[in-house]
């Protein structure tokens, strides 16, 4: 719609009315700078997390113990890269008016200005981790991403629709690995329990702090104001517990938190808070595998510079 004659305030009010009416905002529409910036931050972080998230599972692709599992995990990691690509395309459109490109996204990743999800900074030392990432990390991702399916920004909402559909397959793929291990030999059972113990705290952290008190800042209010998400971090974490705690226990596994229980009076799960100071350190690229994984990404970027150079005349001409 033509807004060229309106003042900034009028444009803003019109924009907010569109959001309240449930309309979708498109890439070429007028939008407040704050909205654009929060979307760029959110979607580029989501996109780069998909790409960095391929790295811990990639460790297990060549080692998958059967042809069926090899094919499954190859397809799964490919999907994650595909999500990354889709989301970077969405971000590129948003960044265009600011004169920024994908190259900037990669450089921001290397300098630490662009963060990636805490879970992908962690170690994945056994095949049990490969299964657990699919089952619970992707399970957690489904919960946070379905919360944004109705996001006011159309391109992101549409990308999420496809991503969520694929994440459901990933969670099933992970669950199948975990089920085989949980029903297997003692060694295999121990492998799963070990992975649950290792991933429990990172999984709680995955949803972010309950409020700004934990870290000093939180984007929850802004994203809610603009109709990007509906539920709070804590509500999403509670949804995760409701869905997965019974499933984990039904496999004969234990949760490494003796305080964990559902309180009928409070109508919520009571649990031990993760170490939020540690979380802050991890997302600042000081996690156990942060530097190693960034090094892989950076090395491939540097080693293939000649390829990008060779392709650039074709891209310019195209």
């Amino acid at each position, binding site marked *: 719609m033509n807004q060229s004659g309106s003042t900034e305030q009028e444009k803003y009010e019109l924009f907010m009315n569109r959001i309240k009416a449930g309309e979708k905002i498109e890439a070429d529409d007028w939008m407040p700078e704050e909205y654009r910036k929060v979307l760029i931050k959110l979607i580029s972080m989501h996109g780069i997390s998909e790409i960095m998230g391929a790295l811990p599972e990639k460790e297990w692709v060549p080692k998958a113990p059967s042809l069926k599992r090899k*094919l499954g995990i190859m397809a799964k990691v490919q999907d994650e890269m595909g999500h990354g690509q889709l989301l970077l395309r969405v971000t590129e459109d948003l960044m265009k008016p600011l004169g920024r490109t994908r190259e900037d996204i990669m450089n921001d990743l290397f300098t630490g200005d662009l963060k990636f999800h805490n879970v992908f900074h962690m170690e994945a030392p056994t095949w049990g981790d490969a299964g657990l990432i699919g089952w619970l990390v992707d399970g957690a991702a489904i919960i946070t991403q379905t919360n944004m399916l109705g996001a006011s920004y159309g391109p992101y909402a549409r990308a999420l629709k496809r991503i969520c559909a694929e994440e459901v397959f990933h969670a099933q793929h992970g669950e199948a690995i975990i089920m085989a291990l949980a029903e297997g030999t003692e060694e295999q059972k121990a492998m799963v329990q070990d992975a649950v113990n290792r991933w429990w705290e990172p999984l709680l952290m995955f949803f972010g702090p309950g409020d700004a008190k934990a870290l000093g800042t939180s984007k929850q209010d802004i994203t809610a104001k603009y109709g990007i998400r509906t539920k709070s971090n804590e509500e999403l974490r509670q949804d995760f517990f409701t869905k997965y705690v019974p499933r984990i226990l039904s496999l004969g596994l234990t949760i490494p938190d003796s305080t964990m229980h559902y309180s009928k009076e409070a109508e919520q799960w009571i649990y031990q808070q993760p170490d939020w100071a540690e979380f802050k350190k991890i997302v600042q690229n000081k996690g156990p595998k942060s530097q190693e994984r960034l090094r892989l990404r950076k090395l491939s970027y540097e080693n293939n510079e000649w390829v990008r150079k*060779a392709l650039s005349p074709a891209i310019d001409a195209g």
Partner: protein
Amino acid sequence: MTEQLSDKSKQALINLLYQLADDDFILAFRGSEWLGLAPHIEEDVAYSSINQDTMGHAAMFYKLLEDLGEGDVDELSHARKSTLRKNAVMLELANGPGHYLKEPNYDWAFTVVRNYYYSQAKKVKIDSLKQSSYKPLADAAVKVSMELYYHLLHWTVWFKQLIQAGGEAKEKMINAIKKAEADFGDVLSLGPLAEDIVQSGFIESETVLTQAFHKRMDPVFQGLSIPYSGRFQQINGKGRYGEHTEELVQALDTINEVYKINPKAVW
């Protein structure tokens, strides 16, 4: 169907199937090491798709071996020692210096050339296998052919574009061609039972396959104005005869790291 085969023919068929299965299996493994490291994200997605297809082809050929009584597909793909492998040596060579998790200084030019040469050779073989006297193999070839069409398109674009770019890219590609050709003889070899394989009508002879290969490659090189040698060696060993490099031994250690914890367990 196998009841009609003489022992000699059956052994020849099994040998050929191992070549086909092991070739695709090890190349898909090398491809999977590239995950997350390809020159750009779009290529990561595309290459990964090709590797899945190729691993799927290996699974089909291993299944044909299982049906012939050679053992379980996972055992065939994971547990066999390097000396029992029949893959061409060119396909087992490492992607470059380093390990896939530590300082992988991988060579994209060699990867493009290896995959392009292999896809062209596979096309020639698969076309011949469509007429194989062993019906299950001919049926498998038809399925492989549908996906191979896209692999060949993909690698042709890369091969031509990087050479046409000139400069450093062209130089790297020419070096990669030399490296690939030094072991490519293996890819077109049918191994120690070649005569029985051909006589039983499972696939055409090495000479016929090699000529068909030249016929495909020669015009491509002419179009790119670079010389096509058409001469291939096997400097690092004859894979069809069980001769392999240390790089395959290391690859197998990675491949079976989890499997060997307990080969009898369900994973």
